[in-house]
Each structure stands twice: as structure tokens, then as C-alpha cells.
């Protein structure tokens, strides 16, 4: 068992040596794989960020209930807050609304020229459940409450966003599948060339009693290593892109006075990407070397 591991370790080191001895070819392949993997992964990260952003909106996605003029706000709020599906309800009286509007919009002085307060009383509701179905139900209940003039929700808009995100997600899956296939083909081709260029060596190893597994081993290690390093390159490319984007995002963030920052892949997802790269590299090499060995002499 020990000699088995020693052998594998030796092959691994020898393969690393081979890769280092051909730096140009190795770097070219690794970068090619890096770009191939960075595309779907980048799209995925973008989608994650959008989702996070929309989750923030979902949270603040409270419903606004506009009351009829002169309706008893305090009473209606206490009724609404007892309704099923309502986590909390906050009453904003016309006076308070005007105050907030003056503070935030910068139109304060304009409003003072009006003779009366144009704002209705508003109940801001935070629902228990922000799923589209739950919100629809809650909106229809709220509309039947006495004193309610209008219920406004971000519902339709959120639904559209969700649909767009689902579409994006599907796109990432398709693109990921296609580019994963491309990566397998890149490595299969690299491996095929390597096997052909080492035909004499393979022949001699066979003549002295080397098994197919023995002959395959260095090629599989090379494939897995190149795939793993390609994934590492993809992570690097992604990290660089995030750094480049973080400046403009920060500016946008300050302008919107929100508390949002870009997130990259987490540690676990990065490890997953590395594992996936290694696996696809191995697979590509396995396909090519298996085929070449079957074609070759015995």
C-alpha cells in the first residue's frame, strides 16, 4: 500500500516537472481553461449579487396601504396588524409623512407653499412571507379592509425580477454545460497530442510489461493538474474583475445611499470550482488517452 502511494506521488512530481519544463504550452492551456471557466462562473457571481440585492428589496418590500382621507389611522393599524400574514404594521400620519418628505426629498420649501397637506395616511406593512403567492393573498385581504383606499406593492415588479433571475440562472446552467464540454475537449486534445508525441516511450513501456493503467497515469495526472490550475486561473480572473468593478459599484452605492457591496465566490464555492476543474481535466485526459491506447499497437 505504501509503495502504491509512493508510486503515485512520484508520477505526480514527474508530471509537475513535465508541466514546468513546457511553460509556454502549459500556461496557454491553463489560461484557455481559466477563461472558459471564468465566463459561466462570472455570470453566476453576477447573478448571486443581483439576487442578494433583490433579497434586500424583498425585505424592505413592505406593502404600502393608502388610507382614505379622514380615515381613523390608529384604529385601522391595530386591525391590520392582527391580520394573518402581517409581521408588523406602522402608521405614518399625513403630518409625519409630510415631515419625512421634506427631510428626504429636498422639496421641503416647495411644499410649504401649498395650503394644505396633500398626503394621505399610510400604513407600512412588513409581511411574514414575501413569496409572490403570499403577497397576492395579503393584498386582496387588505383591499377589503374599511378605510383602505389603495394598496401598493412591489409585487409585479418583484415577480418580473424573479422571472428574469430564473432565466439568468438557466442561462448560467446552459453556458456552464457548454463551456464545461469545451474544457473537456481542450484537455482531450492536449492529451491526445501528448500521447502521440510520446508514442515511442509508450511502446517501450508496453514491451517491458507496463500495464495500460501505468501508461495512463501520468496523462491523467497532467489532465487533472492542468484542469485544477485552470480553475485557479478562473478564480484569479474573477477576483481581478471584482476588484475592477468594486470602485464603480462603490460610487453607485454612495449615490443610492444603500449598503451594498459586491460579493465574490465564497470559500466553499471556490473549492468546488477547483474540484470541478480537476475532475473535468481528468475526464478529458481519460477520454483521449483511453482512445489513443485502444488505437495504438499492443
Amino acid at each position: 500500500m505504501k509503495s502504491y502511494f509512493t508510486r503515485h506521488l512520484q508520477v505526480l512530481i514527474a508530471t509537475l516537472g513535465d508541466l514546468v519544463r513546457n511553460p509556454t504550452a502549459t500556461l496557454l492551456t491553463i489560461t484557455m481553461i481559466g477563461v472558459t471557466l471564468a465566463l459561466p462562473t462570472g455570470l453566476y457571481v453576477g447573478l448571486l449579487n443581483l439576487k442578494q440585492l433583490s433579497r434586500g428589496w424583498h425585505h424592505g418590500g413592505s406593502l404600502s396601504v393608502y388610507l382614505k382621507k379622514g380615515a381613523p389611522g390608529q384604529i385601522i393599524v391595530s386591525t391590520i396588524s392582527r391580520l394573518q400574514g402581517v409581521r408588523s404594521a406602522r402608521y405614518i400620519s399625513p403630518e409625519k409623512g409630510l415631515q419625512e418628505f421634506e427631510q428626504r426629498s429636498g422639496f421641503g420649501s416647495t411644499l410649504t407653499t401649498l395650503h394644505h397637506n396633500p398626503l394621505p395616511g399610510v400604513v407600512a406593512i412588513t409581511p411574514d412571507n414575501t413569496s409572490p403567492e403570499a403577497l397576492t393573498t395579503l393584498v386582496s385581504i387588505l383591499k377589503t379592509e374599511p378605510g383602505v383606499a389603495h394598496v401598493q406593492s412591489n409585487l409585479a415588479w418583484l415577480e418580473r425580477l424573479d422571472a428574469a433571475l430564473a432565466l439568468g440562472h438557466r442561462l448560467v446552467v446552459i453556458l456552464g454545460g457548454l463551456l464545461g464540454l469545451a474544457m473537456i475537449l481542450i484537455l482531450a486534445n492536449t492529451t491526445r497530442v501528448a500521447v502521440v508525441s510520446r508514442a515511442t516511450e509508450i511502446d517501450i513501456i508496453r514491451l517491458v510489461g507496463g500495464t495500460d493503467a501505468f501508461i495512463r497515469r501520468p496523462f491523467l495526472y497532467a489532465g487533472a493538474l492542468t484542469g485544477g490550475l485552470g480553475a485557479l486561473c478562473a478564480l484569479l480572473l474573477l477576483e481581478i474583475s471584482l476588484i475592477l468593478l468594486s470602485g464603480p459599484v462603490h460610487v453607485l452605492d454612495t449615490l443610492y445611499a444603500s449598503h451594498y457591496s459586491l460579493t465574490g465566490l465564497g470559500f466553499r464555492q471556490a473549492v468546488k470550482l477547483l474540484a470541478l476543474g480537476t475532475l473535468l481535466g481528468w475526464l478529458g485526459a481519460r477520454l483521449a488517452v483511453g482512445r489513443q491506447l485502444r488505437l495504438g499497437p499492443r
Partner: protein
Amino acid sequence: MPFCLPNHKTMIELSHVFKRYPSGNEALSDVSFSLAKGEMAFLTGHSGAGKSTLLKLISRIEQPTRGQIVVNKHNLSRLSRKRVPYFRREIGVVFQDNKLLNDRTIFDNVALPLIVAGITGDDMRKRVQAALDKVGLLARARSYPLTLSGGEQQRVGIARAITHRPALLIADEPTGNLDAAMSDEIIDLFRDFNDHGVTVLIATHELRHIDRLQKRVIALGRGHMVNVA
């Protein structure tokens, strides 16, 4: 003894072996002979007589069109593709063109049969050194094949063929392009292995060795057995 049944004392047993290449060229027709364990024999004949083909059949590099070949108790026509590497570890083959890996040292070349068999570390090192010592090239262990003379390269090939202690040693024109003195040295090396119990079969067209060593001769002419001495 023109024909004998395979038994535990037989190393090579060919019965009615034919080999026809896809080109239609019949390289061997109806070849039968046997070689006992511990025996040494020369396989002779003009070039094109089928010597190389015969050795390729015995080392399972090629398969016969018809007939049966048993080597070291393995019926080669029933040997599965998976078992072929393990069979090859029981024999040692010296090729006319050496078949050395020029980008690896002499040591690594000779170690190859051990490495593929999973023998590593001190055991491997000792065996390689013993084999190189035997052919007188221990001092050149760190050199590369192309820095060696033709005779030295041939000796590296021999060291590689014996390092895993095979029961059978096959050589295809091992003295092919060497001068007389060097060629005698190489043949004496084979006789030495034979004295230590290794069965040896050498294909050669140099009758000088046959006269000198007085060993058994298996002669081929145009793919047929000429005589079995």
C-alpha cells in the same frame, strides 16, 4: 527430438505456427519446435527468413495466424490483453535497435521494467546496479544513451532485459552492427546468463558464434523450418 509435448520442463513450445501479414506476405509457415528450460539456442537464417517475426510471436508482440505457442506455461493465444503486461515481465527481450529512451539516463532505462512492476526504492536501486555491473556499465549509470557507443547501448539494452530476472531471455540480432571483439563479448554475456539458469534464444545470422559456442541451432529458411539440430 523433433517434436515434444509441452511439460513443466519446456520453456517455449511452438506447434504448427503460421504467420501471414495483412499484406499477404507469409512470414512463417508450419513452424514447430520446443526449447527446454535452461537451454540456450541460436535462431538462424538469412534476413527475411522470419527470425524477427518468430521472436515477436514468442514475446506476444504479434499473434500467429494459426498454430499454438506456449511460453513459460502460458498459452499465448489464450492470453487476454490484460494479462499481456504480466506475461512480458516473465521474459526479457533485447531488440536489434535497442529501443532505449534517449531522454532518460542509463539508470532510468534499466530501471523501467522494475518500475512498471512496482519495484521501487532500495530494492530497485540494487537490482539496477547489479544489472549494470554485469554488463560493465555501472560507471555510466548517470549518462544518457546517445553519449554511449553502439556496443555500450546494446549492453544497456541487455541490462534492461535482465534486471527483472526473467526466466527467458530473447535477443534479436544483438550483435547486429558491432565489431567482432565486441560481438563476442556480448554473446559471452548471454552464455553467462545461461550458465546461471536463464533460458536464452538468440536470433543471429553470424555463424561464427554458433561455431564458437557449440549450442543448439534452430534454422529458418523462407519461413520454414530447415532443420532442428
